């Protein structure tokens, strides 16, 4: 009864029953997304502080932000041991998620650090 049925607390998503569709545990996917979000936010803040200390102004700072985000993405992919599909359902999640929210944090801490170091 309980041993043979496929029900479990981790909610599963699946498509049509005709083809062999991949099911995955959405609860674990959510946990992985949370980990990515925390990592990206912390790296955005760190990148902002570094950009402020360096004294970047204007466009160069945004270039620096995308550089930091690329390094973070590479780090996250390395953390997933390069087999992204066993932890996420698509590449977009690990590369693009949290990019715009991180931009806000980056600009905030960039102006903050720049003000502290260069103006006051």
């Amino acid at each position: 009864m309980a041993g043979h049925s496929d029900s479990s607390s981790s909610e599963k998503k699946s498509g049509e029953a005709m083809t062999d569709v991949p099911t995955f545990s959405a609860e674990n996917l959510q946990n992985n997304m949370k980990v990515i979000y925390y990592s990206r936010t912390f790296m955005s803040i760190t990148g902002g502080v570094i950009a402020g200390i360096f004294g970047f102004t204007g466009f160069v700072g945004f270039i620096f932000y995308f550089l930091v985000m690329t390094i973070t993405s590479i780090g996250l992919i390395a953390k997933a041991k390069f087999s992204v599909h066993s932890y996420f359902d698509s590449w977009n999640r690990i590369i693009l998620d949290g990019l715009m929210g991180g931009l806000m944090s980056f600009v905030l801490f960039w102006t903050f650090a720049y003000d502290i170091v260069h103006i006051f």
Partner: protein
Amino acid sequence: MGLGFIVGVFGVLILSHAAYSTIQYRGLLKIMEEEFSGPPMNVVLELLLGFVFCIWAALTVPGNFHSIHPDSEENRIVSLSANLDFMIFNHRAKAFPLEIEMKLKH
């Protein structure tokens, strides 16, 4: 988690020390009336070191990735939520004598 946290705190301390050094450097430049073109080399090295520490902490502290395949090794044990609907109280333990009676007989 503990080690990653300490490394992260260390990275933040290094970054704040680099900020303080840059503030002092700017004060020095004001006295000598020169333009600020970039932080000195040792500050750049400190920033790089702090950045590396922070990257390491950002990747280790938030937690591990869990596999999403339902048939992978670490997903084999599934547990129902601790919900009242699934709790069973009508089981064999009612055949045991009550705890109070056992203590009194002792």
